[in-house]
């Protein structure tokens, strides 16, 4: 069974339609990248999965159950969520940030503590050095790693990432992208990642969904995407060529 299914999903605001008639499935274990320019509806698509938003029409199913049938709190605790800069709580230590969902879910403090160390090690941060620091004392890249660690802490079946590496300098971004690709393969997590960076989509995605004005134009493997003759896809691929290997 696909982990996430969109059935004829429309999402509209009083004066604008953000998503129209979207059909999409996310399979177990894959990393699906939604690619598109600002305002194309890719972030909205993401928020429809963890019920930060609910569809105006149609249905989003997670593990076969409509998001509106889920208890929203339970649903969200089963989904890791990473946003730009990690969305860390500035008044929590790194350890408390990472241990947030386990603590909310009522884990034993000792187990949470152990898990936090494991997660920090996983994302390449030394727990002894970082656990008791505050987010403002970390660099952007380090904060992003903490954001990923937090999303993974409760071992959720699904990970949502909204432009996770967007605010980083190119070098840090490239290394984090590589690490994340390696990590997600190793953990076998299902992930949906949103980006406007075609290079990132190529590196991280097992499938790439190209969105434009609230619609899914195509959904292909990176190889098929590269060969596509869709004009939007070609435009993205051309930026890749112009910028060479840099972007």
């Amino acid at each position, binding site marked *: 069974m696909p982990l996430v299914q969109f059935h004829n999903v429309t999402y509209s605001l009083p004066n604008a339609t953000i998503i129209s008639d979207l059909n999409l499935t996310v399979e177990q274990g894959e990393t699906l990248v939604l690619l598109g320019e600002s305002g194309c509806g890719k972030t909205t698509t993401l928020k429809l999965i963890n019920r930060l938003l609910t569809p105006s029409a149609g249905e989003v199913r997670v593990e076969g159950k409509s998001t509106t049938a889920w208890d929203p*709190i*339970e649903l969200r605790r089963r989904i890791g*969520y990473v*946003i730009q800069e990690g969305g860390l*709580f*500035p*008044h929590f230590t790194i350890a408390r940030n990472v241990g947030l969902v386990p603590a909310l879910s009522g884990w034993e403090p000792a187990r949470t503590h152990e898990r936090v160390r494991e997660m920090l090690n996983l994302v390449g941060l030394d727990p002894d050095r970082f656990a008791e620091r505050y987010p*403002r004392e970390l660099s952007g890249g380090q904060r992003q790693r903490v954001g990923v660690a937090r999303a993974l802490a409760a071992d959720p079946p699904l990970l949502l990432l909204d432009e996770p590496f967007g605010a980083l300098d190119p070098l840090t971004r490239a290394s984090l992208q590589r690490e994340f690709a390696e990590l997600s393969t190793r953990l076998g997590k299902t992930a949906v990642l949103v980006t406007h960076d075609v290079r990132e989509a190529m590196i991280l995605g097992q499938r790439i969904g190209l969105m434009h004005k609230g619609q899914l134009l195509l959904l292909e493997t990176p190889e098929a995407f590269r060969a596509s003759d869709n004009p939007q896809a070609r435009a993205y691929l051309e930026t890749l060529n112009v910028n060479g290997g840099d972007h």
Partner: protein
Amino acid sequence: MSFWQFLASNWSELLLLVRQHIVLVFVSILVAVIIGVPVGILLTRYRALRGPVLGIANVMQTIPSLALFGFLIPLPFIGGIGTRTALVALVLYSLLPIIRNTVTGILNVDPNVREAAVAMGMTGGQVLRQVELPLAMGVIVTGIRVATVIAVGVTTIAAAVGAGGLGVYIFRGLRQYDNNLLLAGALSAALLALAADSLLGLVERQFSFETKRSGTVVRKLALAVAIVLVIGGAAFWLSRSTPSSENHIAVGSKDFTESALLAEIVAQMLEARGVSVERRFELGGNLPHEALVAGTLDLYPEYTGTSYTAILQHAPITDPRAVYDQVKREYADRFKVEVSQPLGFENTFAILVRGEDARRLNLKTISNAATEAPRWRAGFGQDFMSRADGYPGFSKTYGLKFAEVREMDLSLTYIALSSKQVDLIAGNSTEGRIPTLDLFQLADDRRYFPPYEAVYLVRQDSLARVPALPEVLSKLANAISTDEMRRLNYEIDGQKRDPKEVVKEWLKGKGF
């Protein structure tokens, strides 16, 4: 006397005032936080309420503090004189900065952080308690800090409603041209404001998570506001009351002949002893009382029963000694006002009938009149109809059922009675026209009416300040009988003579 000498000899009183000041500020801020923070949270949830509620709080703060105290005095439950009124006003002043900063603090929480909190699976309450409130706390504490510094300033004005605090020294200093008092009060208030500000500044710093907040601007503003309030309040006071000194007394009276006459007696006696007297006669309603408590008046004549029921809000009782003692005790405790010895007469309600009826029907007491009442028409003033010790209890106590009860102006009831428009009225026992119109006062044989002994109410600080005052008041103890008072009233109301002349004659006759 130097300032240091002044402090050395007055430090215990000063400490008491400082303590009162701190308690007033602390309690009012505490209440304002308990009300303001939840209201602020509510306003972040219900956008539609935000404009109206903040608007009301805003208007609250623009009301000059003395005016706000004035509005509150006549209100039931929250109003009146003293600490309670001061606290209500202080809370109202403190609400705006606290509500506004709670709203601003919560709305300014990084939307990404809030979204992350929701996406992590936090419930609404968890988002509020674990994320929004902690992150807004710095801004909220800033609001509390602003409110506190302002409250320290406004509290100096609370002395005007008898709530105590450092304003007592400031106002007293202004009245008496005493720079030591003024300095001690103002300096202490300023130091309190600074102390509260830096203390809360320390608290505020605990909640600075991301960047340094620009608290200095807010703090300077708050200090400026506090200073302006202290100075403004003082200036306001200065402009409305003539400063008193050892040789200056402000004498007030209520707005009727007898009260003005009693005030004139004291005024002339004081003037004869070289004291300059400012006459503030004919003050309506509770104004003399409010002015006395506020210090704009030094004394005015009053009746124990009025103080007992109207000011102290007790249910009427009939034992004159008990009423006098209770009034004396409570005035000293609550208002720092001394009650003089009784002047020797009562001005109570007098149930009057025509002399010819009394003689014909052999009426002596109100009970005697009960059998006649069903055939009689009664005429009562508005006051008697409405007050606690008035008509309803009166008619019940004596089982009186009149053929008709007319509500009319009190002064007209005497004429109405003598011209047989009505057959029974409730007049004043010292009314000058009682003998001249041949009216007869029925005895209150069931002791329904509470005692209304005439006394002077005097501020304790005025007694200490003007040496001639205690002497004059002791001379007047038991100096005026009911008959004498009736005669004096008649000279003025009946013969239309000048009150000053009447008083001068009477004083001469008495040898005062």
